[in-house]
């Protein structure tokens, strides 16, 4: 009896090791040597099938575990490969690469200063539009809206985030760019100004929905307590709910900024693609370039050093957005922990 059991679990262990081992080798070879070994793949598939038939529970658990590592694996792969291809651009002269003012493909001088500045201007403008409107929409949806309206407003705001950025870019290009050109009597179409407006609209739903969650997460009894003291609803919201939700709202703002910073197609279609600082430096009515639009517009026909520099730009973008989203996540989880305890 005991022998049978040990043999059984021995077979199980061997099968598991075989399948997991071949999966590991298959994956490593694919990542490192760019080869996909069909035999190892077959071993993995049939091994899993056999495992499923005989040891369904543990096979399922193992598969689920592997699935749960998938997001981390992808993120890691992105980080590693962007680093491998993009780091050389930083290596030579990192300070010049980030702050220098020239990007000349023909002269092979690459520095990201104007693009970083452009990203900052455009994101700042977008936040100026999205933050006040997003937060006050969140307050309305969470606190003032009746239930039936809320069930309509929330999907509508979600839909605002769902309209493809290329459509935003196209409509913005056709309507907004030329409209702005007419009204302000300027001779160019793609300035920093027009994409800021569209990006503001695009970042708004992120801010609104995350801020709404944060406001909603504040326990109702806190506000009820204030109401019982005779204040109006707005006073209760202002003095009790909003201060408690403030960190969540900050997280929403950070996420919105990250969205605006990483948005690609709308900016690419609306901006002027001039890789130099505007002069004077705050002139938002000059054509410019952001990090994302630089990559999107130039990667298609870049080669050699240019690809390296563009990868560097991508790496920079990835790191900034990563820091922003981790920060906002930390703020959010602190908020959650506080309310769970209190």
């Amino acid at each position, binding site marked *: 009896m005991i022998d049978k059991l040990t043999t059984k679990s021995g077979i199980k262990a061997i099968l598991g090791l075989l399948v997991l081992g071949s999966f590991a080798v298959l994956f490593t070879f694919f990542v490192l040597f760019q080869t996909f070994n069909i035999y190892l793949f077959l071993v993995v598939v049939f091994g899993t099938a056999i495992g499923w038939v005989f040891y369904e529970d543990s096979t399922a658990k193992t598969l689920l575990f592997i699935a749960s590592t998938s997001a981390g694996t992808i993120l890691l792969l992105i980080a590693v490969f962007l680093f491998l291809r993009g780091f050389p651009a930083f290596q030579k002269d990192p300070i010049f690469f980030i702050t220098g003012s020239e990007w000349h493909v023909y002269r092979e001088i690459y520095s990201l200063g104007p693009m970083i500045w452009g990203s900052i201007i455009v994101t700042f403008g977008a936040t100026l539009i999205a933050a006040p409107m997003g937060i006050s929409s969140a307050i309305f949806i969470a606190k003032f809206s009746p239930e039936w309206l809320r069930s309509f407003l929330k999907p509508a705001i979600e839909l605002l985030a769902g309209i493809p950025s290329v459509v935003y870019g196209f409509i913005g290009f056709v309507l907004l760019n030329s409209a702005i050109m007419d009204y302000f009597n300027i001779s160019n179409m793609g300035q920093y100004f027009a994409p800021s407006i569209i990006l503001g609209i695009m970042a708004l739903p992120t801010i609104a929905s995350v801020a709404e969650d944060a406001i909603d997460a504040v326990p109702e009894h806190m506000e009820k307590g204030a109401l019982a003291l005779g204040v*109006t609803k707005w006073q209760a919201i202002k003095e009790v709910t909003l201060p408690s939700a403030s960190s969540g709202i900050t997280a929403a703002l950070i996420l919105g900024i990250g969205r605006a910073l990483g948005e690609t197609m709308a900016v690419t279609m609306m901006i002027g693609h001039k890789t130099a600082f505007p002069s004077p430096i705050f002139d938002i009515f000059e054509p410019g370039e952001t990090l*994302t639009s630089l990559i999107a517009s130039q990667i298609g026909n870049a080669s050699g050093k240019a690809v390296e520099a563009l990868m560097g730009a991508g790496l920079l973008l990835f790191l900034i957005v990563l820091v922003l989203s981790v920060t906002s996540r930390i703020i959010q989880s602190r908020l959650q922990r506080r309310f769970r305890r209190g």
Partner: protein
Amino acid sequence: MAPIKENISETDAADNSLISIEGRVMRRGMLVLWLLLGVVFLSLSTLLAIQPDFLSETLISILGGVILAVAGLTVIAFKVIDDYQPPISHFLLSLSMIVSSGVIFVFFPNQGIVLPGLDGDITPQLATISLFFLVTFAAVWAGLLFYWENPAHNRQLAVQYFTWVSVLIPLGVLAFFIVYTILEGSAVITWDFISSASDLMRGEIGIFPAIMGTFSLIIGATVFAVPLGVGAAVFLTEYANRGWIKQAVGVTADCLWSTPSIVFGLFGYVFLVPRITGHSTLLAGQIILAAMLLPLTIATSTEAITAVPDEFRNGSLALGASKWWTIRRVVLPSSIPSIVTGVLLGIGRIAGETAPIMLIAVASHTNAPDFFSLSAPYFHLGPLFSEVDALPYRLYAIYKAGVGGSIQEAWGTALVLIVLVLLFYGLGIIVRSYYRRNRGW
């Protein structure tokens, strides 16, 4: 009830008694002035919408003068009237009012606004834009009115009004975009446009390959992402018994979700393309879109599975079922509607992604991917390893072609794309509301 009412009227009285009688009269006067100005603006904008050349230069300068005068009076009034500490919000409100009046003037030069696309004197765009600014103006004005009259109840109404307007504005923009696209695009949409490929020789345009390409991309992405995402969620909620594992996966999924789409494109370009065929392929696009869909699937599935009551699990376990059996037969079936909703919304979002597939999966004017044929072997994997066309990329390609591109085709493509996204969102929302009504707990 009675004492509370008394209290409120007491505070009102106390509040008002701080201001002198003249002060109160001046306040009312200011309000009436602003009211009149609002009425003038309303009628002017209506006139402007009907007859764009109505505003003459003199009228503009007169109105500008009046606005400046009233604004100045308002500011002086704040200084003179309010013996008590005037809240900063009063100044901000009058300031925003002046700014919005200024904006109306900047945006209404005497020719009126004629947006490209539609011509003629009375344009729907003009009406929309004047309405937009009127709403802002009216909101600011009403806010001022309410806020000025200080009692807390009015302040509450003012805030309610403001927040309501700030929800309306983005929704107005959304509606405007959709309606405008429908107006412009519906002229092009014919059965041929949707069901056939472009024939450059005969000058016919059709987006069938792009539609099929987009569908193959999102179907592939779903096939890759859903098992992984749901699996991860099941592991996190049912097996992982340590908090940090959940935290770690949550953080990585968040990071993946907020990673810019162009970075996904770059990653596909350096990682997937050399490992698949060396050139753009449908498969690479599917995998990258799956990577973008994955975090959303994990998040919504985790939420859905957590929402299943523990009684379900305990009941099944008490009957002697194993953990996996419980998950497969009890937990997953009762959380599937929520998961489907999340995935549908996610698909709606990735269907329009351009930046990631631009580098790794698409080329314009390729044929529709042919996975099936009428003769043996009936099913081909070949299209997975070749380029496709996709709706968002088609739109971008037309934009890039500049003057050579057909603007009609672009509007038609944009319309089809929006309808596709709306379809997925609508389906998701229908599933969600149906499920909310009929769920078993």
